[in-house]
């Protein structure tokens, strides 16, 4: 009972931290997935007009949905093949992965319906030499995740623009029934999103409580799944054997996805985080790395942002002793470095590794240089 409440509190805190983290770090557009939607729209450009205040040559673009389906946000207008190179777009909203500038399109609420248009999309070109120039335009869908307007969830969309998954940071609060009460089915659902918002890992743990007679122990059976979503939708899903739950980060500092979401760390552990094992998958569900047996109890685990290192912090039970241990494993060659420590000295359970994998920040803020 007490453990369940603690877990609930942890989940709530994790969800809050994940939300704050997501809001504080906007997606890196350079690594997002852009899907060309030009075959579904008609693009019309106006002529150029000199704006003497900005010394730019301005053009207006109209985008009409010429398809039979609704086109959902987020849509952008990408400017490419802008020649000569002395001419540049003065009002870009960002750049696509190819380095082409784009401007955001103001898609109506509910999406751009068939036959509907977005008018007066302003393009401002800097052209100091006042030479003839040309450019091409295409409308692209910026796939990935976004925070819902009310901040309660992360919405993940496919290139078609449809919302395939709305991930609530904490799907459902845990309600503990009395020992004599009704069966309570609890579903935890938490998401871990890559830094560029292109991939999402979703952990779902459905736990069915079973009334346990006269005692006050809660018993039940859990079914855990781990689903991995990319820009095109769900990539793969693994369901745990009953009773062998996947472990899910309850700490926002636990990174399960690499920066670009191309690798995902899955942790499997017995109830109580006992005997954890670690598996790193790629986008095609290929196992890149697997280990088990070092730790007796898991405290924190993390994959490095570049996907090259696995960090684990936990406890090792020894005869008449418990030892804290941090391991950093090079996933490529399976070489590990170990940093033992004494437990019970009020350490702060935080670990983090730098993007290049060279620096580790661990207990009490000590910085350790990796070999």
């Amino acid at each position, binding site marked *: 009972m007490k453990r369940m409440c603690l877990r609930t509190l942890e989940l709530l805190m994790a969800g809050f931290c994940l939300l704050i983290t997501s809001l504080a770090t906007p997606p890196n557009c350079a690594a997002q997935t852009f899907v060309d939607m030009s075959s579904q729209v008609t693009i019309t450009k*106006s*002529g*150029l*007009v*000199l704006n*003497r*205040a900005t010394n730019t040559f*301005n053009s*207006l673009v109209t985008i009409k949905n010429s398809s039979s389906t609704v086109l959902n946000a987020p849509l952008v207008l990408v400017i490419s093949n802008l020649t000569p190179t002395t001419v540049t777009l003065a009002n870009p909203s960002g750049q696509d992965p190819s380095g082409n500038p784009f401007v955001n399109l103001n898609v109506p609420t509910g999406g751009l319906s068939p036959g509907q248009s977005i008018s007066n999309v*302003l393009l401002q070109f800097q052209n100091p030499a006042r030479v003839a120039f040309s450019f091409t335009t295409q409308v692209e869908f910026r796939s990935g995740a976004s925070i819902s307007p009310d901040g309660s969830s992360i919405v993940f969309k496919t290139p078609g623009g449809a919302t395939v998954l709305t991930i609530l940071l904490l799907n459902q609060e845990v309600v503990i029934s009395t020992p004599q009460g009704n069966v309570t089915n609890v579903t935890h659902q938490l998401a871990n999103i890559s830094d560029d918002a292109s991939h999402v890992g979703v952990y779902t743990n459905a736990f069915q409580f079973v009334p346990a007679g006269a005692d006050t122990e809660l018993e039940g059976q859990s079914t855990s799944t781990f689903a991995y979503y990319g820009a095109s939708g769900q990539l793969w899903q693994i369901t745990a054997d009953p009773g062998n739950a996947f472990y899910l980060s309850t700490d926002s500092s636990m990174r399960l996805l690499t920066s670009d979401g191309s690798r995902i760390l899955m942790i499997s552990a017995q109830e109580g985080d006992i005997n954890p094992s670690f598996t790193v998958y790629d986008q095609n569900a290929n196992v890149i790395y697997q280990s088990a047996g070092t730790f007796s109890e898991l405290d924190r685990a993390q994959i490095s942002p570049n996907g090259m290192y696995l960090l684990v912090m936990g406890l090792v039970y020894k005869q008449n002793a418990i030892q804290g241990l941090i391991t950093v494993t090079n996933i490529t060659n399976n070489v590990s470095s170990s940093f033992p420590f004494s437990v019970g000295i009020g350490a702060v359970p935080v670990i983090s590794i730098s993007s290049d994998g060279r620096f580790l920040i661990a207990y009490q803020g000590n910085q350790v240089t990796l070999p």
Partner: protein
Amino acid sequence: MDFRFRVLSTAVFALCFTLFLVAPPTAVADSFTISVNTSAIAGASAQLAFDLINGGSASNTVTISDFSTDGTLGAVSPTGEISGTLPGTVTLMDSPASFFNEYLTGLTLGTTISFVLDATTNGPAASSSPDALSVFLLDPNTGLPLFPTSDPTLSDSLFTLNIDGTSAGNLGVYTSIVSATPTSGTPVPEPPTGTLLGGGLAFVIWKFSRRH
């Protein structure tokens, strides 16, 4: 041989002449009578700018004629392919080598400015931008527009004609002091290319057959 040539040339001549007569005028010119009411700012020093900007591969010609104002015209500063001087006829042309073409004239404003605007109608190639003529009233000291307009390009033009290949073009007027009326209610016809070719070929054959 001579007889057969005459029969053949006569037939070709007849065909070409028929083509000349029946071919519809597919190319027309945008033509508008423009009137600008400047009574609210009469007496102010200004510059009147006509900008013809090349949007792509198509080339067009814009002619300003029948210019009239009760204000006083000042110094002229042309840029690009410009010929003529107001109040006479002024022609602006664009080409791939001439991107920005501007007729800029000083002007002490009276109460009205009027002129007739004619433009050819060569539309843009696929994925290109159309040529556009935009007209401004500028502050001669700053070079910026005298007053804001509802120009959606945020350039504060009085009006803009996008030469999009349609017979009437796409004219947008962004201030209430400008009125634009299509001239004579119908576009000015231009001989289509097929008609000109047919007529020319018929003339050559006619001359050649007379020599024989």
